[in-house]
């Protein structure tokens, strides 16, 4: 099997093609390790859990942001995800039947090879004040409705891998857009029954680079390895904000 991999050493961009023997169950992360250990140890990439829980290894594989550890090389050509068109699709490497194309996550600056600068991504996350501000501290636990917990889990499952950030056409156009992760996280705190901020949470992103920047391409949900639906949370948040404004008028 051949892999065409984006390379950048701080000065020059390039693509290298590597031939890697196939193994049953092989993932793209396995391939990257194989290359680093046996062919070219200058290849750089991030990794940690290799089990799709830590969020380190999101990259653009066959023009779709995916976790390298969760992507089986045998299936990747068939596992097409139909995404709304976004900028990175036209840039750089071309798809081909001859190889599997591996590139860094779009919309973030490349530091080296497949490693991107996550600073902007985490800055946006920090902007939404991602911590519970609870109403009170009961002696024991806050009581929570199991049904509400299950709704919350849709959002707490986010592993901050930034796959959605790299898939979002709006992030590709608007540098200042908070992006799907930060907004999904913000929505998660908003709907937490223990939260004291009420509508202040919603108002935190009530601006043109927040809730209102989303164009509902839904690429975010389509690429999320954990099934988190930022688009849904954003839609609900907008609805609520409109209701609040109607009441205020």
């Amino acid at each position: 099997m051949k892999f065409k991999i984006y390379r950048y050493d701080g000065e020059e961009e390039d693509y290298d093609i590597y031939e890697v023997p196939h193994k049953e169950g092989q993932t793209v992360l396995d391939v990257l390790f194989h290359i680093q250990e046996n062919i070219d140890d200058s290849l750089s990439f991030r990794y940690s859990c290799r089990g799709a829980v830590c969020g380190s290894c999101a990259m653009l594989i066959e023009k779709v942001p995916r976790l390298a550890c969760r992507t089986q090389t045998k299936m990747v050509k068939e596992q097409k995800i139909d995404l709304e068109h976004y900028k990175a699709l036209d840039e750089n490497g071309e798809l081909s039947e001859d190889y599997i194309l591996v590139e860094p996550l779009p919309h973030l600056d490349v530091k080296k090879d497949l490693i991107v600068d996550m600073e902007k991504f985490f800055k946006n996350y920090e902007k939404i004040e991602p911590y519970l501000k609870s109403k009170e501290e009961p002696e024991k636990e806050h009581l929570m409705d199991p049904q509400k917990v299950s709704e919350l889990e849709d959002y707490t499952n986010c592993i901050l891998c930034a796959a959605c950030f790299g898939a979002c056409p709006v992030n590709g156009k608007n540098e200042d857009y908070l992006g799907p992760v930060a907004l999904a996280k913000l929505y998660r705190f908003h709907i937490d029954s223990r939260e004291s901020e009420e509508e202040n949470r919603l108002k935190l992103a009530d601006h043109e680079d927040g809730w209102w920047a989303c164009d509902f391409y839904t690429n975010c949900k389509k690429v999320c390895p954990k099934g988190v639906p930022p688009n849904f949370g954003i839609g609900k948040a907008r609805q609520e904000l409109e209701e609040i404004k109607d009441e205020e008028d």
Partner: protein
Amino acid sequence: MENSDIKKHEVLIIGGGLSGLRAALEAGKKSRDVAIISKVHPLRSHSVAAQGGINASLGNVPGASDDDWEDHAFDTVKGSDYLADQEAVEVMCKEAPDVVLELEHMGTVFSRLEDGRIAQRPFGGAGVPRTCYAADRTGHNLLNTLYEQTIAEKLDFYNEYFVTSLVVENQEIQGCIAWDIEEGELVGFSSDVVVLATGGYGRIYNRSTNALINTGDGAFLAYEAGVPLEDMEFIQFHPTTLYDSNILMTEGARGEGGYLKNKEGERFMKDYAPEAMELAPRDIVARAIITEAEEGRAFEDEYVHLDLTHLGKEKIKERLPGIRQIAQDFAGVDPVEEPVPVQPGQHYSMGGIDVDIDGKTKIDGLYAVGECACVSVHGANRLGGNSLLETVVFGRRAGKKIGKTIEKKEKDEGEIKKALERDKEEIERLIHEDGDILYSDLMDDLRQVMFEHFGVYREEESMKEGLSKIKELKEKYDSVHIDNENEKFNTALVRTLELKSMLYTAEVVAIGSIEREESRGSHFRRDYPERNDEEFLYHTKVEKTEKRPELYYEDVTLGRFEVKEREY
């Protein structure tokens, strides 16, 4: 390659997993200058992968309302095969309800009972449902909560820095040296307090549930600095890891009612632990599976089935969604429809850096918490749900102790500068000099040796052979080389540095295993199949000396529970 500015912080935490972040938050209540150094972004730490839950005797589940810390402590001590220090266990179990409620108050979304209280599930080796959980993503939820708190508290982070050595002078910590992975330069850190929170050493084995980053770095740093390592021979093999990839299939799957079956379709645990069945402690279940394989009753002589099909789709979706996704992603099996192929794999490091119940080591100002430390609360075998608990209880305790005792000290930076020079030479050698051995070959060999010679079943002859292989590999490390000369983001360099931690840690594991001529908990000797309290109800300590690692034994703190035969 080196940055001449020495960075100064009052408290430095090495490692951004649960224990490190919890210690940082607590120390941060008294110190305004706490920084966390981590070789990965904190959210990528291995804590994130913990699935099943965290034990606390909340007694929330109907029928278990009389659960208390003492029952929890008894289960833990019995599970440890009586090697755990009972005073430390008492501390952990007493503080458990409080730390869990504190995490809930900080924002963790725990799974709930119908009445809204935190749900608890049964786990191996426990008398009652005591394990609090957030579906089967408990570590992920806890780590996110603590990380969120560090954002609220505006703590400093040095992400993607690999610590190469600790700096100690006159038995007092001075700071540490770290390789800035992004910039490709060595940085000196001066600090009054250093906390090691670097996780376990599971990746010295080739079949491991651990993240690839769990390479024993903290244990190695402490050992090099002169702190003994304790009970390193006790390696937990988790009975149910996904066949081949060895990704964890939580004990919660059995806690929720899953069966283990051999190729004859039998629930074979009836022959090993007739009372507890699938919920016997991990060491017992792991040995049972290996025995089934050796006696020809495993599939392809390699794996058995974890059967969840009778639980039904709804229960699996609600309680074990993560497991279902992993089985689908990595084995192409939907547990709702068919059984999951599982085999034992390395899972947890019971041993670690010798510390007291506040995480203090014998070096002034140097602490260790979490999996890299040995308090010891797990003894010879850890119970499921106790590792997350250990991280937050002892992280918090260390943080408190630091807060109480911190004092500004005038520090001479001479030792740090010397250490910088020394580490620079080593990194230059690795990057720029030629050698004839690839780091990755050595790493593969080491992992193979550990699994083959220091696995679930052990015996003297094989272990001695294993130890001499480890020594050969250690010698070869001096000729190891990297083929590229990049300084920035040189992943191969970081892995080569990790390999060094692994080799030294592995040697200590090997020495402890050979010397312990008995079977206790996870350490099972075919040549000494019985527990021998008279000679070995002791902690193993291994300390670095000029010539060779020196081994000695120290007493176990007993007192509350009588040492008995362990039956399930």
